[in-house]
């Protein structure tokens, strides 16, 4: 698996959000607990959380179902809320797996 690491993954996901190059994963139905789907957060709030995240808020690893696909995770407390955000890239887009609290 090719590893992007935190700084590059962060820069790329922020660019994708700014460009609207975003898809949302379905497996296979709409996860009503996903905060984006439940309209409990906006994509701009997600952007803010990612923007403020530091290296120690970040983990990466291989997708458990798709070997070779690097999954990026941010687990952090921001503005009084705990966040858990996961995504991967399929060039040129970001695919959000989940945005949970």
């Amino acid at each position, binding site marked *: 698996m090719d590893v992007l690491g935190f700084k590059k993954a962060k820069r790329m996901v922020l660019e994708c959000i700014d460009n609207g190059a975003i898809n949302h*994963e379905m*497996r296979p139905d709409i996860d009503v607990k996903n905060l984006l789907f439940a309209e409990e957060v906006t994509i701009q709030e997600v952007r803010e959380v990612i923007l403020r995240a530091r290296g120690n808020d970040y983990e990466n690893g291989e997708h458990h179902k798709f070997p070779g696909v690097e999954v990026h995770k941010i687990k952090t407390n921001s503005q009084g809320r705990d966040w858990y955000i996961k995504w991967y890239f399929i060039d040129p887009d970001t695919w959000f797996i989940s945005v949970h609290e």
Partner: protein
Amino acid sequence: MKIYKEGDTGKALCETCEGLVDTIYQVRDLPLSDGSGEAKDVLAIVCSSCDTVCGIPHQSLPLVQKAVSESKRQAVESRVPVQVDDILNVACQKLAALPDFRSSLVRYYAKKLATGAFPVEQLKTLLGDDVVTGRSIRRVSVKGGTVRSDFEVIKAATHLSSTDCLKAITVKIKDDIVDGHNEQALNELQTIVAIS
């Protein structure tokens, strides 16, 4: 922002094909994970090989949000003591169902009570059970079907609040399912679990 249209193509990870696949953008009805409804006519990213929906483009998010929001409006939401929520979870275990079955379980009882199949008068007595007393700190949301209108019928007949109706129903679920005193309800619910 790139806007996609029906027939556009791309790439995605497909769980069914277990890899990176070619995709086509198609309009689909997408079910909500809790079974409470679906988002209709959503532009989705579909695997060209196996027809599995892999995802949605960002432009489809508002339609998905609308479906989730509408589903919530149809929900019965209450704060209850923790053990009320626990009873619903244990009942699901007893039925060999996943915890997500809780909504279906409460919907089953709400329908039976609203239609007179179970006597609605018993709810006030059930509510007196000590098992549902305590601080109401856990949120329970029951979604889908006609649960909201069924609760309205029950509330009108009993003059109880939604929360008290839910607590009383939970006492009945404990008696019928957890303690196994209602074989017919147990059998019917096991059938529902098996086919859902």
